[in-house]
Each structure stands twice: as structure tokens, then as C-alpha cells.
């Protein structure tokens, strides 16, 4: 059972504090903060103990979400509960940040009051909670030029405005009662996290995809929704691969509310989404990529003169020509003691800098169209360079996101609300692949 729950900012300010059992004094917050800041890098921080009080914490949105307990509970339960608390806070406040928690503290207290009683978890379902939560969210809407860019010439609707802006889903799920601002929208996101290791000769050594289908629902009530996936979706390792069009995942798991009676034959998920965000399906694919890995690197590392290393990187994006990778950043470890660097990049929007603290150089490319090839030359000055120092260059790690792209090829064929909802509701399907870890050995 949980004794206290508190939320701290990264600087240690108390944002939320609720004591459920009166077993411990409020000093435990300071005890926790001292302990967590005194940890060295290699000590696991998730569970910490002070006398007979245990602290379990997660970090989300730059905040510490902490539960303290005097018993020895299941760590999975507590961690998942804290994650759920953070997710609900995000649902109700629109975004997760120190500012939004500060502005909505009354609402979060109200949530906590209903979610936990005397240290026992009561409920975390939005469907139940929404009956009890009365406080309205205060959302901080930053002014953004992006909103203006959607307005076409002379106010005409452009094609662009049909695309849901990426910030559309970050608003509170409970729009003000009586207020017309809230749109009846439902977002279905297919999110994949890619982790890849490519060996020194360009051989794919490891490839894992962790994917999920996430629904964010703003409709106050929603009847059954049918989500149709690729019909030729295969599940499991043993199945023979048919013609190349088949999409395959190793295994998948569903939210317990998902009805699967049409899944085996038609690959249709039936679900009644409750308000807020929920993951309806998780799937994974291991040891194999259905497509070519999105990036290939052709590096060459040479010793130039006495104290200089030449690093020439040629990076090819193997996505289909119409898609684009965004926010690509490439980190190349450089020999210890590197002092300065000069670079030749192929276009002005790219940047590169040397980070002596991390012994690395960082090359950033804001947009990288599919099929393109970019190259860069870095000259790194290393006083006292030896030929062995060249071994310190590598492995290269990359991070990027691929909008409108899934690596497994999983697609949503259709999204149907049945029976047809009264009033207009907008449905959005979005795909995105993130790089969880993308490493290329040199």
C-alpha cells in the first residue's frame, strides 16, 4: 500500500503532496530529494530506502513522481500506477510539464483523492473518474506561428488544414462545459519504436520493433469503434511467409476492453474507447526488418597529419522517395582530448558541433528526404594523437523520427464508429516511427 504520493520539480520544489496514511512526516520529501540527487550514475534510482520507508519513483515530463511505502509491494504495480497517474495528468491538463502541474494542482489533488484511498488504488479509469472530477483544467496555450500557417490565402481552407497539426492532441480531454471550443475528435496513432544495430560492414545485426496503437479520444461518449488492420497481417514466428505483401509481427497483446471476435478472420479490433488516452494494442517484431533499415552510413576515418583526424561520413536515407525523416541527429564519438573541429556540410540548414564533455561530435539534419544522400567531412584536432586513438571513433548512434511511416508496414484500413455518431466527429490516423536506439558500428 502507498503511504504518500508526491510530485517534485527537477529543482526539488514541492508541486503536489498527499499523505494517505499519516505514517510518515512531510520531511520524507526532503529525504527523498537529497537521496535522489546524491546518487552516482551507476546506482539504480528506481527504488530507494530510508530506514523502513521505501521510495519508488519515475521521471516523466522532467518531474519526479514519487510513491513512498512501508510495506514491500509489487514494484510493477507501483511503477505502472505512477505511469498511469502521469498519463492521466497529461490527459486532464493537456500537457505534462512543471507549469501545467502547478497551474492544475487542485485538479490533480482531486484526481489523487479518487484514485487512491488509505493507500489502496481504487480506480484509474477515465470513464469512472470523469463522474467525479469537477475542476476544470487550466491549459497554457503558447502562441504559435504554426497555427497561422494553416490559414490559407484570404482565409480559404487549404489542403494543408485537412492535416491534423501535431499539437492538436495536446489539450485537455475535458473541454469546458457549455464551451464550444472542444472538438469531437478521435486520434488513432500507430507508434513504433525502432532499435537497430548495424555492424561494421553494413550488416544488420539486431533489429527490434516495439509498436503500439494508441487512441486518444475527445468524445464525451463513444459507442463501439471498429479499427481495421491490414488483412494480410500474420502473427507469430512460425507462419510461413507468403508473398512479400504480408505484414508480420511476432506477437501482440491487447487492452482487456478490446473485443477480438472479428480479429482472427478480418483483422478488426472492436473497442469502446473511453475518454483520454489508452493503448489498445501492443506488438513487437524481433530480429528482422520487413524493409531496409532507414539509414545506411558509409564512414571513413583517417589520420590526416600529426594531430588531426579526418572523419568522412556519407549517409543515405533508404526511405521511399516521398517520405522524409525529421530531426535526424548523428552522434559520433571522437578521441579523448579533441580540442576543435572544422566541418564541411552539404547544406546550410545542417549543423555540427563538437561536444568535448561527451567526447562526441553531433551532426544535426532537420529534414532528410527519402532516397537522398548527404555527406559531411569533419576535421578534428586531437593533440597527442596516436593511431590507436582512431579506435575510439565509433560506434555512431542516430536518433530521428519518421512521420507517416511504420517499419512493420502495419496500416489502419478503416476506422468506423458504429452506429454513426450524432454530431460531427473527426477521426485522425497518424503514423510515426521513433528511433529508440539506432547504432552503426564503424
Amino acid at each position: 500500500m502507498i503511504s504518500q504520493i508526491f510530485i517534485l520539480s527537477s529543482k526539488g520544489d514541492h508541486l503536489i503532496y498527499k499523505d494517505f496514511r499519516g505514517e510518515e512526516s512531510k520531511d520524507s520529501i526532503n529525504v527523498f530529494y537529497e537521496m535522489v540527487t546524491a546518487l552516482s550514475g551507476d546506482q539504480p534510482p528506481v527504488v530507494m530506502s530510508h530506514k523502513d520507508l521505501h521510495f519508488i519513483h519515475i521521471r516523466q515530463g522532467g518531474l519526479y513522481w514519487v510513491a513512498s511505502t512501508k510495506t514491500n509491494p509489487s514494484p510493477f504495480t507501483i511503477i505502472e500506477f505512477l505511469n498511469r497517474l502521469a498519463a492521466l495528468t497529461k490527459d486532464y491538463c493537456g500537457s505534462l510539464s512543471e507549469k501545467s502541474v502547478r497551474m492544475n494542482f487542485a485538479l490533480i489533488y482531486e484526481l489523487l483523492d479518487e484514485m487512491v484511498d488509505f493507500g489502496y488504488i481504487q480506480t484509474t479509469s477515465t470513464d469512472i473518474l470523469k463522474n467525479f472530477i469537477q475542476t476544470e483544467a487550466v491549459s497554457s496555450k503558447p502562441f504559435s506561428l504554426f497555427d497561422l500557417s494553416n490559414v490559407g490565402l484570404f482565409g480559404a481552407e487549404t489542403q494543408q488544414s485537412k492535416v491534423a497539426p501535431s499539437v492538436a492532441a495536446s489539450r485537455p480531454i475535458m473541454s469546458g462545459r457549455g464551451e464550444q471550443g472542444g472538438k469531437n475528435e478521435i486520434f488513432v496513432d500507430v507508434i513504433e519504436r525502432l532499435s537497430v544495430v548495424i555492424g561494421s560492414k553494413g550488416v544488420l545485426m539486431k533489429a527490434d520493433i516495439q509498436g503500439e496503437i494508441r487512441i486518444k479520444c475527445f468524445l464525451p461518449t463513444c459507442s463501439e469503434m471498429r479499427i481495421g488492420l491490414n488483412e494480410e497481417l500474420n502473427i507469430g514466428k512460425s507462419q510461413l511467409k507468403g508473398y512479400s505483401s504480408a505484414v508480420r509481427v511476432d506477437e501482440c497483446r491487447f487492452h482487456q476492453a478490446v473485443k477480438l471476435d472479428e480479429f482472427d478472420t478480418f483483422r478488426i479490433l472492436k473497442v469502446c474507447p473511453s475518454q483520454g488516452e489508452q493503448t489498445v494494442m501492443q506488438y513487437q517484431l524481433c530480429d528482422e526488418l520487413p524493409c531496409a533499415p532507414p539509414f545506411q552510413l558509409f564512414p571513413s576515418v583517417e589520420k590526416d597529419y600529426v594531430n588531426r583526424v579526418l572523419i568522412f561520413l556519407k549517409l543515405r536515407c533508404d526511405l521511399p522517395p516521398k517520405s522524409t525523416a525529421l530531426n535526424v541527429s548523428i552522434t559520433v564519438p571522437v578521441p579523448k582530448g579533441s580540442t576543435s573541429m572544422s566541418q564541411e556540410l552539404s547544406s546550410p540548414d545542417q549543423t555540427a558541433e563538437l561536444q568535448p564533455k561527451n567526447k562526441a561530435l553531433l551532426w544535426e539534419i532537420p529534414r532528410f528526404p527519402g532516397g537522398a544522400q548527404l555527406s559531411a567531412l569533419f576535421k578534428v584536432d586531437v593533440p597527442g594523437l596516436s593511431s590507436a586513438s582512431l579506435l575510439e571513433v565509433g560506434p555512431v548512434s542516430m536518433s530521428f523520427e519518421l512521420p507517416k511511416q511504420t517499419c512493420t508496414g502495419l496500416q489502419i484500413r478503416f476506422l468506423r464508429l458504429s452506429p454513426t455518431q450524432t454530431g460531427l466527429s473527426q477521426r485522425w490516423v497518424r503514423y510515426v516511427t521513433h528511433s529508440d536506439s539506432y547504432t552503426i558500428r564503424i
Partner: protein
Amino acid sequence: MPYFGSEEMVKELKRALSNPNVQADRLRYKNYITKVIRYMTQGLDVSALFMDMVKASATVDIVQKKLVYLYMCTYASDKPDLALLAINTLRKDCADPNPMVRGLALRNMCNFRMPGMTEYIEQPIVAGLRDKASYVRRVAVLGCAKMHSLQPNTEIDGTIVNELYALLRDPDPVVVVNCLCALEEILKDEGGVVINKPIAHHLLNRMKDLDSWAQSEVLTFLLRYHPRGDDELFDILSLLDAFLQSAHAHVAVATLRLFLHLASAHPAVQADALLRTSAPLLATCGAASRELRFAGLCHVQQVMRSQPGLFGMHYKRFFCGYSEPSYIKFRKMEILVELVNDENVALVLEELRSYCTDVSPELAQAAIAAIGRIARTYSEKCLDILTGLLALKQDHITSAVIQTFRDLVWFCPQSTAAVCQTVEACVDSPQDSEGKQALLWLLGEHGDQISSAPYVMEGYIDGLKTELSSAVKMELLTASVKMFLCRPAETQDMLGRLLHYCIAEEESDVCVRDRALLYYRLLQRGVEETRKVVTGPKSDPSMSVLTGRQEEPIRQWASTFNTLSPLAGRDLCPQTAVVSAADQPSSSAEKELLPESTDVTLSSPDDTEEEISLSLGPPLSHETFEKMWLDLEVLHRQTLGFPRPRTAPDTLQAALQLVKIQTLAFTPGDTVPWKAYIYTRSTGTLILAELLQAPGSDESLVVSVKQQPVNQHAIRVFVSILKSVLQTPNADSS
């Protein structure tokens, strides 16, 4: 955090809250109340406003009510007399037609932690238990527990306990689970809530209606239930089967724990449950939440203590992502080391090699230590990598590699020659004291194989004045004495200087001086005396590589599974951490093993008929041994005619080691039947054998031998050597 000018602030708030104009304007009034709560959260003492807040509780605005209740619960224990004023309002709310208001009032009234509350809350709680709204019943049930915790020493109220037991049949699932929790607290002194057969079956049947939190709570309570007989047990297990694969990790893990507990007499069922849960567990290891990932990894480690092969094929899932925090990377490396086998060793080593140049020195050193652990089985490949790392000439890497070499030589004597060659070629020396100690140990222990050893040592002796660490000085003393014993001519002069410096000159550390004096007096007794005392075994006589990999029974960790202990690391031994000084041959206790075993080596060659001899050769992995054992036929079976030796397992293992027989595994202590698996090589054949002491009978050992390729002569030699070794400790003990 008392704020500057906080008293002013409180006064101002008080003035505002009591201002009739503000009270009339609902929005402004509420704003001030919000402000009070905000200050309260920040740690400001606003208890002086209690009176005004009590007044504010009489409102129809539920949001305002909630805020005021939060305030009152916080300060009730400081201002008990004022809090009594609020009770009237609260009791009135407990009879409100709106169930939400009733529940809210009851919950908060029970949260007032002050003496004397019981008389006010008892009646509303009893009424709440029979309320028609489930929301109020949930609150009332936990209210019973709260009431009990207010007066923990009073007698337990039997009627309330009975009422709670009856409410276990409530249609609302949350009420049911709350009842369990409340009873558990109230009956704590009597051993908690009783889970008998009807209750257990009732809970099992309700499992599907519960939400995931309640499910894992109930699964934990069910740990207490003991089914009568196997039929009931298997009924329960099949009911719970689907939950093993729950999408919620906490439910899957809680179910697994219950399975392991209930099926403790059925290892096959346990193994099957572990196999089926491996997918959800692996999924948590790749979860988006780092903390969940960490919890998953810690539990995978626990499972691997009994089932090392379970995750073998998924080893790539434990490769580190570059953006992961280092505490996750450390765990993953520990797991990778355990998962190495003949097929994946190359890939795993390549992966670990890439961590060795990580920015974080701790991580790099852990990766090097991990390679060192793998080197105990696959020495050649690992030595290449480690030697390559020395070329980087980075202080922290060099130091870690040298430390790894020390441990490797200690655990895996076959690699000594290669290590000595590398150490000799290594030009730069470690700078930190840990690394220096390791290098000195290597030089002292294997000085005969490193030709430049005296010169390196001389450098250290000359630089003694600038050396700060006394641990290094102690190691230097020991190493110099050992070196003197094997290469006296080159060492005599410098050892003299060293002893002189430590004893007579400005040595401030008493320990170092005493150690030097000890060696000095020892040397005075003569070289042979010194040799007897100083030299010990050159490798670990207990061969902890093998014992370390033995599979533990599940019950050893099942009790801490799905608790905080695996995450806090209190029950886990840090295995990849650089092996500490305790493992080194500095303690004299281990040395006593040696004389006894040398006799064995001397006596055994007499039995060999020809010049056939046994050799160790490269170690076999467990998997390979198991596969070969299953494939081959028994060629020879013999009853040895005496029981198994009653010595410590370590001694037996060391004795076998000395006649070149490797022990792969044996059953611990006095378990019956006692079994051991051993193997050895001889003139091109591999001999595998099983020693078995069957219970009952005449307690005689039976040896079964398998061989590839067949060589009957070698088997005879093997059996005769084995007999002599096994009889020797027996003779000693009797």
C-alpha cells in the same frame, strides 16, 4: 521551506477570507481558498486560517468543498478542538441525497487523524457499509480500517469484522478488494484476513470483473491459500492461466508469482509458467518507461537464476540502447554475460566491445569486467579484445583491463601464459590504485613468466615516496617478497630498499610498517619458511565459475519475486562487478586446501597402466555437456563400492581438478539422491561421467561413463584415477 514574509501573507489571506464582500463573490472566495492550498503544498504553515476554512466548507460548490476538506485533513491533528467544529457539517453531508457528497464527506471525516474521532465516525461508517451506492460502501469499508488505525490497541469490533466478511460478496468489485485490505489491517495481529476455500473460489470467480489493480491485489492475497489436493490446484491454475499473458505487466507477474508458489511441488508446471510469462517479461524489458524496463530486467535476472536457458535465444533484446540510463545498461550487461553460449558469443562480445569506449568510465569498466567474465569460458576471443583495448592507452580502460586479467588468471589458469605475454608487452601502467594493485599482484604471482617484472617493480619501489595509497604499498610488499622467492638475484637489492623504507624511514601508516616487519622477520627465518607461508595456490581452488553457474531451485527466489527486493539489489549479488580483494589468495584459510590435494596428484599417476593421461582442455559449457550426454550411450557402469566422500564440495572439486577432471555440476549438500557430473579429456577422446548415490541400498557410488570417440583403455584409466581421488578424502575423514 518557510517563505520570507509568510506571516504577512497568512494575515492578508485571513483578512480576505473574512471579508464579507469576498464571501459574497463566489469566484473570488474560491480563488483565495485555492491560494491557501497552494501555500500549504509549498510547505507554508497556514494552519492559522483553520476557522475561516471551516466556514468555507458550508457550500454547495463541490470543488470548493474538496479543497477545504484537503486543508482540514492536513491540519486536523494540529488543531483538534477547531476540527470538531467541522464535524457537524461533515455529518450533515454524510446524509446528503447525492452519493458523491456522502462519500466525499465520509472519506474525509475518516481521514481526520486525531484522538477521539472514533465516537463521531463510527455511526456514519456503519451506515455507510449499508449504503445503496457502491461509491459510499467503498469509502466506508476503508473507513473501518482507518478507524482501527486511529486506536490500534483497542479490542477488535466483532460485528464490523463480520459485516466486512459479508461484504466480500458485494456486487461491486472495488468494495470486495477494499474489504480484503481492510480486514487484513484490522486482523493484522491475528494473522490477517482468512482466505478459506469458499472465499478463495469466490475471488477466483470474480477475477474477470476486476480491474487490473484489483486483480494483482487479489492474486497477492491468494498466495495465502493452500488448495486441498492436486485436482483443486489444477482447477485454480487453469482458471488463472489467461492472466499469465495479461497486457498489464503487474498482473502477469503477480500471476506468475502465484503459479510458482502454488505449484512448488510440480517443477514442470513452474517451468511451463515461466516459459509462458517470458514474453510479457521481455516486453517490459523493452517498455517505453525506463523504470518499468528496470523492474523487468531485475526480474529476468531472478528467473535466470533457475532457468538460465529461458532467455538464451532472446539475447539481442538485452543489447543496450545508447540513450538508456547507465543503471539499465549495467543490468543488461549482467544478463548478457549469463546468456553467452557457443553460438552467440561472437556477437555478444562484439556488442560488449563497443561499450568499452563509452563516455562513462564506470560503464566502460563494467563492460571490460563483463568481457573478463566471458573469458573464463571463451578465453581466446576475449583476450584478443582485451589486448586490443590496451592499445587505446586510456587510463581507466588500462586499469580495468589489468584488473580483469588478474581475476581471469585467478579463475582460469589456462590463460596465464597469454595474459603474462600481454602484460609484458603493455607499456603504460595503470594510474589508479585499484589498477596498480592488480598489476602488482600479477607481477608477484607470475613474475617467473614475465621477464620484465623486476624492472617494472623497481619503478614502483623508486616512486614509493609519491605513492599515497597504503593498499598499493601493502600489495607492493607482498609482490616483492613473492618475486624474491622466484627471482632472488634480481630482486634482492630492491626488496632490501623497500623494507628499509617501510620499516625505518618515514612510513606513517602502521599497517604498512607492520606488514613490512612481518615479511622482514619471516625472511630472517629462512627462504623456505617464507615460501611456505607466502606462496599459495595460483588459481582459485574452489573454481567458482562452475559453482556460480549452478541452477538454483526456484524456491530460493520465489518468495521475493514481484517485491521491491530485486530492484533494491539487496538479494542480488553484483556479479559483473570487478571481483573484490576477498577472492584473492590473501587469506591464509584457503591455502590449507593445498597440501591435502597435492598428495592426490602424487598418488594417482601410479595407477595409470601406460602413459595415457588426462587433460583439462577447453571447458565445456552446460548446454554442450547436456546435449552430448543425451546423445551418447553409456559405455561403462561400475559400482565403486564406497559411499560418496563427505568433504566440502569445494575440496572435492579442487581434488578432481588436480587430477585433471573438471566438475560440471553437483547436487548440493546432503540431498538424496546425490549426483555429480564430471568430464575430462584424454588422448583425443572426451569422457563424460555421472556419479550417482542412490538412496537406500548400500549407499555405494555408481559411476556411468560416456565417451566420444570410444577408447576403452582410457575409460579404465579414468575410472581408476577417479576411484583413488574419491577414496582419498574418505580416508582422511574417517
